[in-house]
Structure formats: C-alpha cells, structure tokens
C-alpha cells in the first residue's frame, strides 16, 4: 500500500512522510512526532479538525492527547474523553475496538457517532496498531462536508498512523532498554538481597509498566516459595504468603522452570488464587518467569494486569513483555547468586571466628581452671600435713580468687561478643551517647587532655543505646590506655563527608551518616596490624581475650554502620564510627519526643 500512498491524495506530499521519518530516526520525542503527524493529516486531508487519541493501557481508556484544526477548547477535549469513558462507543472507540479504519460519510446516519461539534458532517478514523496487534491509538479526522473523505485520504492517514506506531514502539524500546540498563546498574554492587529484590520490582513496575509485580523466592528451610517483595496490597504479606513448589501457576513455573503467560488465569486448572495482587475476578492477565540461579530454580517473578473494563481492549502480556521479564529474572539470578556467595563468605568467616573463639576460650579457661586446681591441691596438702600458715592460706585463696576473676572476665567478653549483634533499637541522640560514654570512660584525674567537639543539630540515629555506649566506651578506654602521660584525646561528631563515606560499601555511600571519631596521641596502629585490629583475639595487651575491638565492630555492623582506623603509625590512633541517620525527618534532640514505641 505504501507505494500508492501519496499520489492520489490531493494534499499528500511525499516530503511530509520523509520529514516525519526524519523526526523518528533522529530520536525526536514521541509527542512531537505524534503532534506533527496529526497536523499533517489534518492539512493533507483538508479536514476541519482532527485529534489523536492514545490508549491508556493501565485504565483501558482512550485519552485525547493531541488536537489540531478549528474549534478546540479545553472543555471539548475533556468532553471527548468523557464520552469514551461513559459509553465505550463513539467512532473512536469503535475503531479502537475493531482495529480497523472507519469512514463515516454522513455522521447523522451513523450508529456509532456521538456528536460533540455542531459543524461535523463526515469523519474518518484510522487505528494505530502495533506489532502485537494491539491498538495504541486512533487518528480521527472530521469535515464539515458530507462524504468528504476518500479512500486515498484513509490510506494516507493510515500511513501517518503507522509512522506514529513506529515512533511509539521505538520510544517503548528505548524506555525498556534504559530500565534494563538501570536494573543492571542497580544490581551491581548490592550485597543485601532484600534491597535488590525491592529495587527490581520498583524499576519493573515503574519503567516497564508491570503494575502489579511480586517476587517469590524458595525458602531453604521450608522448601516453599515465600513472598519476598511486592508492590500494592500484597506488600503486607511479605515473608508470610507462600506456595508449595508446583502449587498454583506460581509454583508450576518454578517446578517446570518454564515461563507462563495466561490471559484468563482464573479459568486455568492450575490456578489457585491464594495470594493475588488483585481480587481473582479482576485479574485479566498473568505472567510469571522462573528465576534460575547457579543451583537451579530459586524463585519466581510474576506480574498481573487488571481485567479491562472494555471487552475490546486486550491487556494480555505480549512476547516482548515476556522477554523483558525473563531478562530481569536473569539479571536478578546473577545478582542473587552473587549475594549468596558473599553471604557464604561472611558466614564462613564468622564460623571460622567462632571456631577459633571456642578453641581459644577453651584453652584459656582450661589453663585458668588448671591453675585454680593447683591452688586447691596445695591447700589440701597443707591441711593434711597439719602445718598451715595463715599467710600461705591467704596467698592461695587470693590466687584462686584472681583465677576466678579472670574466668569471669573471659565469660563476660564471650557474652558481649555473642550479644553484640542483638540490638534493641530506639531513636537516639548520638551526642548524648558520646557524652555519657566519655564521662564514664575518661579517668577523673588524668594528665591527659580531653577535647570534645560535638556538632549540633546532628540527625538522630536508630541505636541500641546500651550497646553503643559500650562501643564508644571501649574506644575511649583504648585511647586512654595507649596514651602516654600528658597526651591528648580528641572526641568529635559530625556529618560524614565523602572522604569518610568511601569506607562504606558503594551501595550505601548515598545515604546520610553520622560520624563519631576518637583520636589519641598514643603510638597509633602499625600499618601491618591495621587489617587485623578488628579480628577477634587480636590484642597487644595481656588482659582478656582480645575481643574488645571485635565486639566494637560487631556492634557497629549490627547498626548497619562501619568502623575504620585511619591514624598515622607513631603519631596516634584515629577510630571513626559511621552510623546511618534515622530515616525520620525529625531532628529534635529533646528527650521524650522520640517515637512512642521507643524507650
């Protein structure tokens, strides 16, 4: 048909088609292309006016987006929209429904026509149909003359309409490509599975228009598919809603490791309708793809679309939709595999620490008990010999007491190491916590100079005050203990700047963090020891098991923060703790204003 297009149509100019094509290939915006198409159609066909209505896929409605020609007012545009909403008829709706062009030479006698302009006597409408056979919009031209529009007019309008569809499809592809690139970027660097899942859903829903999106993952403990992320009403059931493998359409997808696409899901024999984003009767289309990781199927990504209120409006998912969803699932699988590897690494490290810890503590406890037994053995011997000197007895009792004290100290450290990650969170004022810890940790009479520099108006943080005070107290104690007579300790708080934040994981660097810094003028940390100081059992003091800084790190980690040492060896140690600001906007530091759940 293209070859015949331009000749017979009186106003059709080959240049018009060339110009519009040029707009499309030079990436001009869709609205500009469509507006130009409409104007050229009106001009070429000598129509009194025209409009281009675009199908809103989410609502299944026609939306008059572009108008050209005489007599348009805001009221008229809205009036048009209302008509299609109320009745689902009118020539435009009819063309959208049938996806076929329609020429009405005399609107007075037309069963579909609904009048909105007094002067109209004839009208043609051509649909904009995409490669999936779906109507994307309708181009409508009106004339005051009866029988004005010829077949040639209709053909030319169709050609322009096709160009419009091409522009829209290109824009869609670009948006999808951008969304996929964005998902790829977002996934890179995440080490927290929960954050990944929600992010993917957000991008899928917003950029790709998969409105109701949910993600189920196989839970290793129960072997069930458990809802891990969702948008909309199902959000409340995250962590609870679950399917057996093979149960319902969702379970089927995982069991077969195949994607599934159903137009009327509730008619499908596999359908269970257990957990739906929409009421079962409203689900118009259902699509799910398995997420296949290194170890096989690990979950399902699924989307649903509302049933259209219009019978003619197809809202089932297309091949394109399925390809996109499968691509996202693939990226997700890679990212999750990565997270699992990191998790495993962390777990292995923690396990190794535990193994070392139990071996070490058994060794230390064993030695202490052995020594205590020696003292007891000696007392028994002295008693049996009948020659017991009170001074000897006291010496032995003191030795036993000391042994027991050391045992208790070990137990205490052990307990704190274990409990470092179990938090009782409330919203708290960092400066208050620092002030209290410093007061408790800094000796009353000391030749050391203490400088405090606490920034006012710091955002509040979610903290376990007891644990954080323990953590700051330990850092204070370290600073004091490694300080020569007359040194200086500098404690400061401030908003973390970019230099501090580079110690955070890349995915976290955009957040707001409060920094707490302890600096001293002691010997500092040797460069070779810097990587080891937060390991359990690393100590340069004889006391305890050397768990101090590992407990500090455990507490900071549990607060989703980080700790680092950046002092200069020989000049002093500098420990900085970064803690995320509470998400609430409130900045008050007054007591009693905190969250009612707090405290």
């Amino acid at each position, binding site marked *: 048909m293209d070859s015949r297009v331009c000749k017979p149509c009186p106003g059709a100019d080959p240049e018009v088609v060339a110009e519009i094509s040029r707009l499309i290939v030079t990436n001009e915006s869709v609205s500009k292309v469509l507006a130009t198409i409409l104007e050229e159609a009106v001009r070429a066909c000598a129509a009194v006016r025209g409009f281009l209505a675009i199908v809103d896929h989410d609502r299944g409605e026609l939306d008059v987006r572009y108008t050209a020609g005489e007599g348009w007012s805001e009221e008229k545009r809205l009036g048009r929209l209302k008509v299609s909403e109320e009745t689902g008829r009118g020539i435009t709706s009819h063309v959208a429904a049938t996806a076929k062009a329609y020429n009405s030479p005399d609107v007075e006698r037309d069963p579909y026509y609904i009048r909105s302009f007094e002067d109209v006597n004839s009208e043609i409408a051509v649909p904009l149909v995409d490669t999936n056979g779906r109507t994307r919009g309708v181009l409508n031209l009106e004339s005051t003359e009866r029988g004005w529009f010829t077949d040639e007019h209709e053909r030319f309008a169709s050609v322009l309409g096709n160009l419009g569809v091409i522009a829209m499809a290109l824009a869609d592809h670009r948006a999808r490509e951008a969304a996929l690139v964005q998902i790829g970027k977002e996934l890179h660097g995440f080490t927290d599975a929960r954050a990944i899942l929600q992010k993917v859903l957000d991008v899928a829903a917003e950029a790709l228009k998969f409105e109701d999106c949910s993600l189920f993952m196989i839970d290793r403990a129960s072997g069930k598919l458990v809802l891990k992320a969702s948008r909309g009403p199902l959000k409340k059931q995250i962590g609870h809603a679950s399917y057996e493998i093979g149960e319902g359409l969702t379970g089927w997808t995982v069991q077969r490791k195949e994607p599934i696409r159903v137009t009327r899901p509730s008619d499908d024999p596999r359908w269970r309708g257990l957990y739906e984003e929409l009421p079962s009767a409203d689900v118009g289309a259902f699509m799910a793809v398995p997420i296949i990781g290194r170890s096989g199927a690990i979950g399902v990504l699924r989307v649903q679309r509302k049933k259209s209120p219009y019978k003619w409006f197809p809202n089932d998912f297309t091949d394109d939709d399925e390809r996109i969803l499968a691509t996202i699932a693939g990226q997700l699988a890679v990212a999750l595999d990565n997270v699992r590897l990191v998790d495993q690494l962390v777990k292995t490290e923690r396990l190794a620490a535990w193994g070392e810890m139990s071996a070490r503590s058994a*060794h230390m406890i064993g*030695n*202490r008990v*052995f*020594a205590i037994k*020696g003292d007891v053995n000696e007392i028994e011997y002295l008693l049996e010999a009948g020659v017991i000197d009170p001074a000897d007895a006291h010496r032995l009792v003191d*030795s036993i007491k000391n*042994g027991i004290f050391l045992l208790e100290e070990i137990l205490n450290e052990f307990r704190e190491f274990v409990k470092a990650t179990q938090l009782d969170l409330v919203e708290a004022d960092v400066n208050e916590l620092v002030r209290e810890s410093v007061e408790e940790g800094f000796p009353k009479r000391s030749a050391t100079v203490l400088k405090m520099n606490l920034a006012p108006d710091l955002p509040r943080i979610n903290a376990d005050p007891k644990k954080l005070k323990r953590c700051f107290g330990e850092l204070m104690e370290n600073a004091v203990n490694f300080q020569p007579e007359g040194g200086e300790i500098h404690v400061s708080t401030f908003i973390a700047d970019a230099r501090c934040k580079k110690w955070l994981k890349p995915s976290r660097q955009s957040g707001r963090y409060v920094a707490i810094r302890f600096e001293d003028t002691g010997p500092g940390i040797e460069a070779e020891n810097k990587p080891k100081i937060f390991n359990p059992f690393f100590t340069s003091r004889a006391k305890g098991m050397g768990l101090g800084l590992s407990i500090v790190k455990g507490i900071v980690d549990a607060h989703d923060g980080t700790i680092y040492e950046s002092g200069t060896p020989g000049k002093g140690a500098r420990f900085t703790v970064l803690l995320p600001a509470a998400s609430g906007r409130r900045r008050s530091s007054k007591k009693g204003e905190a969250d009612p759940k707090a405290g």
Partner: protein
Amino acid sequence: MCRILVIDDEEAVRNAVKRRLERDGYGVDLAETQAAGIEAIESHKPPYDVVVTDMVMESPTSGLEVLQAALSTDIFTELIVLTAYGNVGNAVECMKRGAFDYVEKNIPGVDVFELLSIKVAQALDRRKASLSTLRRIEQYTMGR
C-alpha cells in the same frame, strides 16, 4: 637431685606445676616460651631428667619442637606433654616420636596435679632403667 624443666606460657600454670613437683623433692626450672625452653634444654648441664611442656605455645606444634630439642640433647630425657584442651592428636604424635606420656590439664573430677606427679615419677623410673641398661651394655661391650 632430679632436675625438671617446666615450659608453659601461662604464669599461673608454671607456678602451680613447679610448686607441686618441688613438693616431691625435685629441682624445678621454668621457661615461658618454646624458644626459652629449647635454649634451657640445650644449655643445661647435666641434661634435664624430665621436661614438662605445654603442647600449644607459639605454634600448635610447640611440644614437638621441644621434644626434638630434648631428644637431640639427651636421648634418654623423658618428656611429658601438657594439653590445655582436647588437642590430643599432637600429644599422641609426640608419644609416637618418643615422648613419655601426655597429661590433659582439664579432666573433670581428676586431680591432675597428682596425676602429673605420678607420671613424672614413672618417667624418672624409665629414665633410670634406660640409663642402667645403657651402663650394662657399656660394661658388657667393654668387658669383651
């Protein structure tokens, strides 16, 4: 008087063992590291009769190093290995290579110091027997 060397990195352990063995009438020297222990073994004249050493000090195989030093100084020096917690594997390895015995520091309900005292006495008996055998072999070969 019999000379005994006690090597352990825990002061409380060294002192408790020394006190108990002195009660039995032995002369007891102390060393607090594997290196110091080996140096004492190599320099002491006459060689120590019995060496009591912790298994795990600078390294998990400290006991083995001490054993090697003791046997290369005097093949008849008896070695008793102390193990702080169930690290019996290395202690058994020591015995395979000629140590007299091992004593676990923590055995529930057992007075390990009495046990150690008995082991030391047995070790000394074995050393005496070995030495007298050696003397008789020497006399026998010289008499021929």
